[in-house]
């Protein structure tokens, strides 16, 4: 009997040893720190897209996914650096020149286009997409408010209605867009993935839980909205100038822990992370993984606190100025782990129109003027006013909000914090009924045009949607009038005027409280070729089509 038990024990030890050695073999073959998935698959760790509907998403994480699935009429070149700002043909045969004094854009669809499910692409599908975008209250709606008939369509609220300024002909594939006034940013906005046509039959006038087919290198399946999204290579995709899928499958694992994402990339369980390493992982990553980690102020971005103009205390200019005087970018640099460049302009460096004007509120690299801020709070008549600072739970945003709360208390307000989940945050603070007084926000360039900042975030037009990106509910007739003048001009033509308008918004009116520009990071697993294929893109942050595995 005893011999029998010894035999069992020996067998168990042998089995354990074999399994350990098998694990070792896997590591050797996989070369990916144990992922063992080879070059055909890519795993991305991400905070996740904020919406499964291609016209309703808002975040940088989402655009990185959706641009792989939905190609618009025109699109941005898939090139790293400055080259990525070039608009190239997408589903349209060519990038149109505006006619009719800059008020008309005519596109012609390429012949024989098919969605990933084999359905032919029709010109009218584009109008259907635009109707969905406008009807469902996408935050991007304001980009297209200059199209003839858009305000009427939105007011009627009838999905079956017509947008007069969009004419389509399915037979010829022609799409004509008429604007009420010339607006150079419309073409940039039309290059965004949320304008990409999707089959009308599968894209009704309601929010979708599962993305419809598109024309893109990949198809998208939302396996579990809060946990897993899967992109699969679209074998039908073949558009000139746009790279085909390199990976058969891309798995996006959603997590709200940046720490876990970073650890996954270090271990090779994820090949790339859409977020930036924080906490003490940041110095570790910077020191130990230099060859696969990089930082760049890309896409151009601005970090600022929104100040709600509609409700106390920031309905008074003095209160808004007080915040600007009190902010200490040097403190915020520390919270960002050194990845923040202090600044006071609303338009970020590297964007056409950026003007490095003198900051009225003091040197962004110097100490704040707390005494002046306290005096302004007194003058505003809101001393002791209760203020709730809104933020979300993604690192380091809770810390940013806590710093801001402390500043507000120091200058005479009675501040506390409200923290929401990152996936619902921007939707909540963008609703007027939420009455968010002030809080964290940031903006990454959607397209290389200063209007993407000032027009989209500060104009009265941007308040037309139910959920707005103008979280401060700024409505300034002087600013609106100037925007009307600037819209027909190309960004390059009006660069100085955009800079002056930025100065007016920040220095003269204190519409917002900007404090700097973030250096975004790109962090890859060992098996990825981070040196040659980081895919750093000025519009998509990282263009996953450019990623590649080491040879």
């Amino acid at each position, binding site marked *: 009997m005893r011999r029998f038990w010894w035999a069992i024990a020996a067998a168990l030890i042998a089995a354990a040893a074999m399994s350990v050695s098998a694990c070792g073999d896997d590591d050797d073959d996989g070369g990916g720190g144990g992922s063992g998935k080879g070059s055909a698959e890519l795993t991305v760790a991400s905070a996740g897209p904020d919406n499964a509907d291609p016209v309703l998403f808002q975040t940088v994480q989402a655009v990185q996914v959706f641009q792989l699935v939905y190609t618009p009429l025109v699109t941005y070149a898939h090139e790293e650096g400055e080259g990525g700002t070039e608009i190239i043909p997408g589903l349209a045969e060519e990038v149109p020149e505006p006619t009719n004094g800059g008020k008309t854009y005519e596109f012609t669809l390429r012949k024989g286009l098919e969605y990933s499910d084999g359905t032919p692409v029709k010109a009218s599908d584009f109008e259907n997409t635009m109707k969905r975008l406008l009807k469902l209250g996408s935050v991007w709606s304001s980009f297209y408010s200059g199209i003839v008939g858009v305000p009427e369509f939105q007011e009627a609220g009838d999905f079956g209605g017509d947008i007069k300024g969009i004419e389509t002909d399915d037979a010829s594939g022609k799409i004509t867009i008429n604007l009420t006034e010339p607006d150079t940013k419309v073409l940039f906005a039309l290059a965004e993935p949320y304008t990409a046509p999707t089959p009308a039959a599968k894209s009704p006038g309601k929010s979708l839980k599962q993305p419809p087919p598109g024309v893109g290198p990949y198809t998208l399946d939302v396996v579990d909205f809060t946990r897993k999204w899967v992109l699969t290579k679209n074998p039908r995709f073949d558009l000139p100038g746009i790279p085909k899928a390199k990976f058969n499958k891309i798995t996006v694992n959603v997590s709200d822990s940046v720490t876990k994402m970073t650890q996954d990339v270090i271990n090779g369980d994820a090949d790339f992370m859409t977020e930036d390493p924080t906490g003490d992982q940041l110095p570790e990553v910077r020191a130990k993984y230099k060859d696969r980690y990089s930082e760049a102020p890309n896409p151009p971005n601005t970090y600022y606190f929104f100040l709600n103009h509609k409700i106390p205390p920031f309905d008074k200019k003095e209160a808004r100025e007080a915040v600007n005087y009190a902010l200490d970018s040097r403190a915020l640099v520390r919270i960002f*782990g050194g990845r923040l460049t202090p600044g006071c302009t609303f338009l970020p460096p590297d964007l056409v129109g950026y003007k490095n004007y003198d900051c009225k509120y003091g040197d962004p690299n110097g100490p704040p003027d707390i005494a002046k801020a306290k005096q302004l709070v007194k003058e505003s008549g809101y001393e002791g006013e209760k203020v709730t600072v809104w933020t979300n739970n993604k690192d380091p945003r809770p810390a940013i909000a806590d710093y801001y709360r402390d500043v507000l208390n120091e200058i005479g307000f009675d501040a506390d914090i409200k923290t929401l989940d990152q996936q619902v945050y921007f939707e909540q603070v963008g609703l007027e009924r939420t009455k968010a007084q002030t809080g964290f926000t940031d903006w990454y360039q959607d397209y290389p045009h200063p209007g993407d900042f000032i027009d989209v975030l500060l104009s009265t037009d941007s308040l037309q949607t139910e959920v707005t990106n103008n979280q401060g509910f700024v409505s300034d007739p002087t600013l609106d009038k100037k925007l009307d003048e600037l819209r027909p001009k190309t960004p390059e033509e009006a660069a100085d005027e955009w800079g002056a308008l930025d100065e007016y918004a920040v220095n003269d009116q204190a519409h917002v409280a900007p404090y700097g520009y973030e250096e975004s990071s790109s962090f890859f697993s060992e098996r990825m070729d981070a040196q040659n294929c980081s895919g750093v893109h000025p519009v998509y942050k990282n263009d996953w089509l450019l990623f590649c595995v080491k040879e």
Partner: protein
Amino acid sequence: MASEPATDYAFQGGPGAFEEEAGHEEVHGLSPWRLALRRLKRNNKVAIVFGVLFLLLVAICLAAPLWANGPADTDPYKNHLTETIVIDGKKTNVVSLDGVPIGPTWQGKFFLGADTNGRDTAVRLLYGGRNSLLIGCAAALITALLAVILGILAGFVRGFTDTVVSRTLDVIWAFPVLLLGVALGTALSLGGLEIGPIKLGAGSKLIPILIIAIVYVPYMARPIRGQVLALREKEFVEAARAQGMRPSRIMLSEILPNLSSTVIVFLPLMVANAILLEAALGFLGVGVKAPEPSWGTMIGDGVKHILSGPHLAIVPGGMLVLTVLALNVFGDGVRDAFDPRSTVRMEH
């Protein structure tokens, strides 16, 4: 980590047990309380030491303002991100340019270092302890109150009332404590709680108190119900009935006093579990709301910097361990003192 208390809740105490025990020791004329105290002093000095330790921890936390306004010269919410401090004659950033906070200085300011917002860890530890202890004790008291009411009602009235109460408790029991706590915490973290005239803001400490209190009610109410079921059949209750005493009076004057030892035995263990659950909820971001500190939220914030600032997680973690250990050892001692044969246990 608090898990569900054991289902082994048969409490075999009661007045008979005290009398019997007293008889063995030939002690007459002593109340059960005095008897228990004597037994605790005589047989379980370790429990007394840990009880004193707990009181000491409470006293230290209550003295938080003395430390904050004195040597530390700050409050638990104040950010000192850009400040410097002189250590050994050398100027040092409270938080370095790449965001790493200073470690323990062993002097008045930043005695235990700073957190990533440059807040004084020692000060936050003491104020956080006040919050953790307040929530733990308040939640345990509310749990005890609800459990006694429900247990007596279910056990004494029986019938339909018993069915409703017991099944409701079963439903709560069916959820893992932490999961239920997180679900309730998440649901109430946005808009707070509003039931009729009762309004609690999302940041109110009453929210974690109520959540913890409610999720633990079944773990105390069920043993109490079991004990009441036994007590209602005792002669002294029958005598009260025969004298024409109303049921409500019997519950208050005959049943309730006989439950006191059970409640006393449960309380320290319940406080320990409530503190642990509060820490878990805080760690997961659904407990005490920022900027209020608690040991759980401090541990949660600290683990992100465990390499560069291990003190941020270790210090509040240590305090939590000490407090819970003290309560558990003391609670076990109290249980043994009241009834050495009791099998009441709460798992940790």
